[in-house]
């Protein structure tokens, strides 16, 4: 049987996101299975543990809620291994969660015995800023957990998978999640030397939202993370031009009024005459350099700093326009116009909407990025959201696993290729 026919059934992808773990074989079609990217280490003396006697020390997947014990224990027992896209080298608990998730996912799709199954071709994806030791640990995990389930394994960066899933071979992928953002040029390969990382993500939008709630008399809500996030998602806007949007909102406060009721409660946030501040939320994500934010920094809101994590320096105050330009200008000059023509935005931090009647002031994420680049002299730009923001990484991994020849062996310089797993 040809390898293409075999891999049209036995290609398997795993997307290790910061919150969710998406997994499954090619035969699932459009949508992978999804569980939380987390694991729980139960207290072995508990009645529940003794009654159901799980075979593993780490509980992952849909069973986690069954084993949760006291709230006080959660912070030490419930582990989210990839909150910032990276796992510390010495964080054994986090690596055990990752190991359990890989076993859990492969066991969920065990083919019938004696049907000629010789192991899956597994493609896993990691954040583009993952240092080499993460590749080493993850590939080692697959080797340990094999037991005949895996024929070969590889790891690819998530922005690379996004480009593959979107079907564009030359582009810049900007991935923005809760903790950080990455700008990654792709031209048939990831151009790793040109990547730029930002120490800014959805969590920073939450921070400015919290400050706005304090300033407008909702200090009691400002400390509840889940409420702050909901308020951000429902009233936060991205301005095309911040000064003009604020002026317009102050002139016509009813048009720009920001109001949100927390579902199932009587709690309502109404910014009234301060509704202009809703534009600060979106602006801060894309460009924290406006002087209006200085007053928040001086009052104690943390200014995004440059930090080094692993091998990568994450820039704190670089706006998205400058970040894209800095990244593209590290690439060959001939390639640069082609990269600007395909800029892809991926990740939950780009899900900004434009409400009716505010089309003149508010814009969506692709438009904002286009405006930032235009203000810096880059005009022939095409910026789009990825076609399937939730699943594009998983799609890209499936295509990679199907198409790459099986004799293309893993190379530690290139960080690509198949690593054969002994059976």
């Amino acid at each position: 049987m040809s390898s293409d026919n075999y891999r049209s059934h036995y290609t398997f992808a795993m997307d290790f996101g910061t919150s969710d773990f998406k997994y499954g074989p090619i035969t699932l079609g459009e949508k992978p299975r999804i569980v939380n990217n987390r694991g729980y280490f139960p207290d072995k003396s508990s009645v529940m543990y003794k009654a159901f006697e799980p075979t593993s020390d780490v509980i992952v997947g849909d069973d986690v809620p069954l084993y949760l014990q006291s709230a006080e224990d959660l912070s030490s027992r419930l582990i989210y291994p990839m909150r910032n896209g990276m796992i510390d080298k010495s964080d054994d608990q986090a690596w055990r969660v990752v190991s359990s998730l890989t076993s859990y996912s492969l066991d969920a799709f065990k083919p019938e015995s004696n049907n000629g199954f010789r192991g899956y071709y597994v493609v896993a994806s990691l954040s583009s800023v993952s240092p080499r030791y993460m590749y080493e640990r993850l590939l080692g995990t697959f080797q340990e957990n094999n037991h005949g389930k895996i024929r070969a394994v590889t790891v690819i960066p998530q922005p690379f998978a996004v480009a593959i899933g979107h079907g564009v071979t030359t582009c810049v992928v900007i991935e923005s999640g809760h903790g950080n953002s990455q700008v990654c040029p792709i031209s048939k390969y990831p151009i790793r030397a040109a990547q730029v990382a930002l120490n800014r993500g959805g969590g920073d939008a939450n921070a400015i939202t919290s400050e706005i709630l304090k300033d407008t008399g909702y200090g009691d809500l400002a400390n509840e993370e889940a409420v702050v996030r909901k308020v951000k998602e429902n009233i936060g806007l991205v301005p095309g031009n911040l000064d003009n949007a604020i002026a317009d909102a102050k002139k016509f406060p009813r048009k720009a009024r920001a109001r949100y009721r927390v579902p199932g409660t009587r709690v309502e946030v109404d910014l009234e005459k301060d509704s202009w501040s809703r534009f600060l939320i979106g602006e801060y994500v894309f460009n924290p350099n406006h002087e209006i934010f200085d007053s928040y920094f001086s009052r104690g809101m943390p200014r995004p700093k440059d930090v080094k994590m692993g091998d990568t320096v994450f820039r704190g105050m670089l706006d998205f326009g400058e970040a894209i330009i800095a990244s593209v200008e590290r690439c060959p000059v001939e390639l640069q116009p082609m990269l600007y023509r395909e800029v892809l935005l991926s990740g939950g931090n780009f899900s900004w909407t434009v409400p009716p009647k505010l089309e003149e002031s508010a814009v969506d994420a692709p438009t904002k990025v286009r405006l930032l680049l235009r203000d810096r002299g880059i005009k022939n730009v095409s910026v789009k959201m990825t076609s399937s923001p939730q699943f594009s990484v998983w799609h890209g991994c499936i295509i990679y696993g199907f198409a790459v020849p099986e004799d293309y062996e893993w190379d530690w310089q290139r960080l690509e290729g198949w690593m054969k797993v002994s059976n």
Partner: protein
Amino acid sequence: MPNPDSNQAGLSFLVGADQVHVMVLKTQDLAQRNSIIDTVLKLSSLRNSYQTVYLAAPRLLGATIDASIFRAHGIGLLFFDERRIDEAVAPQPLQPTRPPVIPAPAQDPALVSELATLKSMYFEMERNLTQLRDDLKHLHQAPRNEGFAPQPSHPPLGGGPHEPVFAPNIVQGGPLPSYFSNNPWLEVLSKRGRLENEPLAG
């Protein structure tokens, strides 16, 4: 009392003159796709043997099923966790029945003839469908100048002289997902390691 029928899973009780049967779903069963349906179908088949039947399931299942279905079929539903057991749906007691004796109808020659005709048409359709499936398979495997059909880039896997039989949940010969359509990466990736002189932008 223990279930006298060793082939039947579950627990049987005698409550007065009524026979009660309970089938228990364990937590690990929830992870298996067909175990819930299998258990419920087994319970339904026991409706004529026991006055009352119950399904006992972990409380977690309560959020995912509609209890009215159990009510409609007279099956009782119990939820349990480490603290207690609750009856979510009360069963409808039923007298065990004997299957009715239906006299064999007299054979209608016209009906028999029509059935034979339908049978031969069915077999003909089945042959045509098999032929169409084979033609489609050959069409997918044939080389193309454009489109997403992948080119075989290397010799078949060695070892294993027999064709694998795929699991029932795999649709053999089915189309690839939509994100494969017109995707240029299929060709780019299929050449990995083949064009060693190709300059890398990275």
